[in-house]
């Protein structure tokens, strides 16, 4: 579809509608996908990393069996805006808070944390209380994770609190 527009010289001409649409406010981000603790399965983390790349983000994958301290260090050195923690081991109630506290202690308050893997719904509230902004379980669509990141980038741009050290009750979904 094409629509008439006026060019710089004031003359009317036709342009494709697609060319006239404003570019989306969505900003691509640097995202660390990490596997905390003793958990040897990372198919899920790799699928997530791949689909975030396909969504235009720069994704740094840490590999398996990282300690909370190592993950904080990686987020710092890579200057990532977002951290995704994938855990299937059942130790999320220890490992995820350890990472969140580590980020806050190192002054990385603006980093946005989300989690995924096998995390029973009974545990969601306590992780959200730690500052985790979204939790994605089995069956979550990768498009939904991209929508979450889009919402995150809009909040960052409009300076609404969303980081791990920023007080906010906001959560996805």
């Amino acid at each position, binding site marked *: 579809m094409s629509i008439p527009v006026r060019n710089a010289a004031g003359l009317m001409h036709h342009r494709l509608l697609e060319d006239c649409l404003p570019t989306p406010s969505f900003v691509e981000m640097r995202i660390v996908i990490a596997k905390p603790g003793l958990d040897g399965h990372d198919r899920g983390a790799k699928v997530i990393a791949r689909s975030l790349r396909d969504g235009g983000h*720069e994704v740094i994958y840490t590999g398996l069996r990282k300690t909370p301290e190592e993950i904080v260090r990686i987020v710092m050195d890579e200057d990532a805006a977002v951290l995704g923690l994938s855990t299937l081991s059942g130790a999320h109630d220890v490992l995820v808070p350890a990472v969140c506290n580590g980020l806050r202690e190192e002054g990385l308050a603006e980093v946005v944390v989300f989690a995924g893997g096998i995390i029973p719904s009974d545990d969601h509230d306590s992780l959200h209380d730690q500052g985790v902004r979204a939790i994605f379980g089995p069956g979550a669509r990768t498009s939904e994770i991209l929508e979450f990141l889009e919402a995150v980038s809009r909040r960052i741009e409009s300076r609404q609190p969303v980081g791990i050290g920023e007080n906010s009750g906001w959560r996805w979904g």
Partner: protein
Amino acid sequence: MAMGLNDPDLLKSALSGNRRDLSKILTSIEDGGSFEVGAQDPWTLGVTGPPGVGKSSLIGRLISSWVDRGERVAVLAVDPSSPNSGGALLADRLRMGDIDSGDSVFVRSLATRNHPGGLASCLSPMIGCLAACGWSRIVIETVGSGQSEIRIVAFADRVLLVDGPDRGDVVQAEKAGIMELADIIAINKSDLPNSKQAADSVRSAIGLSHGSQPPVHLVSAHDGSGVDKLLEEIESCPGSHLRGRLRARERMLSVWDSRLLDHPKLNEVLDALGTGSITLDEAVESLK
């Protein structure tokens, strides 16, 4: 994004050893910012080679040897961005072994953002900042496929080319021009059969060219054999004048590329070229 410190304070903090602020500075340079750190004499090593030959694993070995000797090692690991989405999957650091703990290693993954020339223009300032912040060994890793990626290693003062057995593409490496840039060649995976033949075929290939020939080392990032000798070679590498000139040429070409691709009139000129209203020569002339 909220920036806690202004640039001079950020730099002061990084120079006093704050990693987080150094990391922020590298991001800022990548986004086009500049920081005045004064003249530096950084020690740099470029590592390149075809995908899958074990560059990152070998760098992991070198890092632990350096750290044992009291060096502080920084790595800039470059991976290509996806041409479709513009995103990138940066996973070099996961192959570098035990690098994520301890204060003596700093690894930053960089995406080419479909414009390796653009990355080239920020590499020198990044290296300068890392050196000023006390990183005594700076490694730049790029995958050795594509001329513009290879050019990135020319920003290092010594270049290590890594290859492996059963690849059969010594000729490919020669075609890409990387052989001439290499000060040292390592054939990795010496624990696998045929690695000795690979080393022999590389030796015979470089034996045909004039001038000083780079030494060829057989190493194994898997079991560590040959790594000490390779490290000695890297440490004592003088960096030849001839290759210095070649490096300068590659650096100049990548900055030139970057200027051209960043030119404000680029799209206008491309449109005009597309409709045939100007010639290629006129296009280049108008972008000067």
